[in-house]
């Protein structure tokens, strides 16, 4: 059991963000700030991203993480936080979205 708990701590996105920061990396933090309908991750969930595009944590079940990572690159560049909104996947337009039918808002900010 101690192993499981240690493992959980290792995967904690905010702990990872602090570790990256200590290594001198630029870090962006994405947070689910609002959900409607059946959203895969609750409000308060985090995805943390570094400048190389490495990421830990999640804001959905893997549906929109790619788009959030791409936006995070801009946020790291400009330092300006950004609000993203994702809805149901629009398959005909090949837009990213949530297949579960929910809608989420994700706040992306730079650490520091």
């Amino acid at each position: 059991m101690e192993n499981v708990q240690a493992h959980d701590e290792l995967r904690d996105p905010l702990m990872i963000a602090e570790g990256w920061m200590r290594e001198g990396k630029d870090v962006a933090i994405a947070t689910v700030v609002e959900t409607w309908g059946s959203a895969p991750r609750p409000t308060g969930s985090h995805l943390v991203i570094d400048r190389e595009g490495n990421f830990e944590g999640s804001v959905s079940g893997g549906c929109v993480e790619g788009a959030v990572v791409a936006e995070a690159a801009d946020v790291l560049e400009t330092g300006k936080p950004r609000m993203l909104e994702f809805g149901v996947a629009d398959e005909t337009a090949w837009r990213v979205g949530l297949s579960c039918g929910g809608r989420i808002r994700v706040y992306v900010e730079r650490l520091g």
Partner: protein
Amino acid sequence: MDPHLLKQLNAERQARRAVVLVTDLGDGRDRLVREGDAVSGDLGLAVEKAFRSGKSGTIEAEGRNFFLNAHLPPPKLVLVGAVHISQALAPMATLAGFDTEIIDPRTAFATAERFPDVVLHAEWPEEVLKERPFDAYTAVAALTHDPKIDDFALVSALKAQAFYIGALGSKKTHARRVGRLKEAGFAEEVIGRIHAPIGLSIGAASPAEIAVAVLAEIIAAFRSRGVGAAEMEKAA
């Protein structure tokens, strides 16, 4: 986010203290609120609610949008007694997301063979709680029937305002327990916080069934944290 704030936030989380991170979604400024800190106005009411419910969310106050991220410590479950019920309850509680520990000074009971995957303290509660005290995010189930082992843990749980306290034992056993706690100076309504008989009434018979009943009661207590029993009944 301010890097210094992230360090503070992580330190508070590791120390098992509840905090709410408030972010102004307009200008990106954030601040850390500890439980008991005074925050005025509508924002203060929302922060208070976030502490009680553990739910994060976006609110509007003073014409601005704020995101409140509630960081409550993960619930811990301490089983006093490395008994047959604990052998079923410990893995179930771990699956349900509780950091689970067992305390039992009887080394014949508290063996790694009987409890292969759980934090096990083969010591008296007096010793263990010196190093690892209960807090408001701890559930305590006293399962030995032996006052020499259970009572100290129950008294500590009452003092620490553990969110759930349960004690195994017949009506007679519990009546004697209540008598001892009264003698120790606890008021009746405080003693009334102890769930006894332990577990939801589902007709549980086997140790594993009793474990289900106890875990369900603990989850009900955890999810209604800060909500009075009457309000829960209204909602149900």
